[in-house]
């Protein structure tokens, strides 16, 4: 078990490193940073000064090592636009996005898990069809459009909920509903598929043959086995929601990581963009490790590997 986990950890570190190299390289491809910084009317000499000042005259690998070395200590550089430390910018914006992503994931799980279980237990019934229909619709609806429709119906017509900003908890309701539809169909399908597989498995037939109650058969014997892939998906989904909140944050004017990234991309504030990419992939990798640990708790075959 520990050897397995250490190996996973090693791969995770390598993944984070590779992602950081890619995002670093990607944004340096975008053109001459010094020219951007200096602005349109700058002379050649001014641009050169800036290049030296920011260390942009050095070879790329040296720049990367310099950046990565400081990133490890939490120093992600400064914004080209506001000159604030990037770390502070991200730290200030993270809570909104974290609440949004976690809340959406919880909402999605609370709806999708029972729905998936019922759909599997009552296969081909109206509840199964309704669940699948909702999944088909949910994975086909553009989230920015769904957000606008929600705003129009619940914010403007019915006036039940606020439509922008993040001052109260009520402000998070519509964004969470929107965002949760992005992951709900997958969780529902995976739960349903896992449950169907488990319900057809011999050990569930055995559980019936032992005369156990339906509740025990469904929840003790089937669901625990069906849950393994769902845990992994939930972790991946959370990572996806953190990065995917950009659309929802933009529509609902929430000041989270997504909107920070969006603003920074639009004004070519590359230290910020690069750091956000780095931080999000770091969080993603942490989450997958966490899901491995949870699955090891659920499944002894992993635990005793």
């Amino acid at each position, binding site marked *: 078990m520990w050897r397995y986990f250490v190996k996973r950890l090693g791969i995770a570190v390598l993944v984070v490193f590779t992602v950081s190299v890619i995002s670093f390289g990607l944004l340096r491809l975008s053109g001459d940073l010094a020219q951007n910084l200096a602005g349109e009317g700058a002379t050649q000499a001014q641009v050169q000064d800036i290049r030296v000042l920011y260390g942009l005259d050095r070879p790329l690998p040296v720049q990367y090592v310099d950046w990565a070395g400081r990133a490890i200590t939490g120093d992600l550089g400064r914004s080209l636009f506001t000159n604030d430390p990037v770390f502070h910018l991200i730290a200030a914006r993270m809570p909104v996005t974290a609440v949004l992503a976690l809340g959406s994931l919880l909402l999605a799980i609370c709806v999708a898990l029972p729905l998936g279980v019922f759909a599997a237990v009552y296969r081909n019934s109206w509840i199964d069809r309704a669940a699948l229909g909702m999944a088909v619709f949910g994975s086909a609806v553009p989230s920015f459009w769904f957000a606008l429709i929600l705003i129009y119906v619940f914010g403007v017509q019915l006036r039940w909920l606020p439509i922008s900003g993040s001052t109260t908890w009520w402000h998070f309701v519509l964004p969470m509903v929107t965002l949760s539809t992005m992951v709900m169909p997958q969780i529902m399908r995976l739960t349903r598929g896992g449950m169907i597989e488990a319900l057809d498995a*011999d050990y569930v037939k055995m559980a019936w*043959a032992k*005369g*156990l109650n339906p509740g025990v058969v469904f929840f*003790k014997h089937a669901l625990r*086995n069906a849950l393994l892939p769902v845990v992994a998906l939930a972790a991946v989904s959370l990572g996806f929601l953190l990065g995917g909140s950009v659309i929802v944050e933009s529509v609902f004017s929430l000041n989270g990581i997504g909107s920070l990234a969006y603003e920074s991309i639009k004004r070519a504030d590359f230290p910020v963009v690069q750091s956000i990419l780095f931080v999000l992939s770091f969080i993603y990798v942490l989450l997958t490790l966490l899901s491995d640990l949870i699955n090891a708790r*659920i499944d002894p075959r992993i635990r*005793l590997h």
Partner: protein
Amino acid sequence: MADTTDACREPILSVRNLDVTLKTAIGELHATRGISYDICPGETFAIVGESGCGKSISSMALMGLLPRIARARADHCLFDGQEILSLSRRQLSKIRGNTLSMIFQDPMTSLNPVYTIGDQLTEVFVRHGKGTRAQARDRAVFLLERVGIKNAAERLNAYPHQLSGGLRQRVVIAMAMMCSPKLIIADEPTTALDVTVQMRTLALLSELQKEFGLAIILITHDLGVVASLSDRVAVMYAGQIVETAPTAQLFADPTHPYTQGLIRCIPSYGEPHPDAELPTIPGMVPSLIGRQKGCAFRNRCPLAFADCAEGDTIALRETHGEHAYRCLRPHDALMAHWRGLHGEPA
């Protein structure tokens, strides 16, 4: 072997005309037709046939474990004096695992991978109100030792994947024994095991049966298993019992052409020459979808003639004792054919 040539007066299980049908997209599939048998306390009754002949699904019907698309009907299905086909799910679940239990084919998949052996053994005992958790534990240890598992108390904390296939099947057998059942349905209990392990598992089953006075329905495609373990046999083909007899008599006087073919396919039987090619039964099993007519075996039968396609079904004929077969040919003609297969004068 217990002497059960006379039908016992109080069968533990009595099945009359059990029909199982499956609804499929292209029509109604007749999985079993008119299955009838009685099982006496303490005897082993083998049901033998190739896969798809309906031998498993008929026992699933008894357990109430049919897939949703299946329907079972029968004149009666009396287990321990109760009509089990008409029981509610609740009432049925009180019998299952309790007085009527089941051993599945594949021990690798019939144990839940995420719970310990002990948990899975004790839950059935506690569920049926046989005692406390501690008593269930004692019973589990006792039975695990009885089925030949060493360090039984420690093994209770093991997970299924930590045991070999043979050990797992012993655990499954112990699990079926937890509530002292009157009848165990064993569905291909040794098919998934290595040959050497098969023999030991069969021996164990037969010991347990004598010791605890169990009745066993043994479902198998392997006549070798039948010969070594059962008191009486029913041979099934295409959803029907085509021949039923005490085991020794079936091997001595196989009457139905299908039984004859099956017995000739046993490697150690049939041809005496080791290099001779093993005989097979030519042709394919007919489709069971739609209305069934005449004898289902007629397209593969060496003795078939025009009348075999007539009528709804072929009647079961008694020869002597408890031996009966489902064929239009007279007994003498069939036996002459059997002797002819061995080169003896007809």
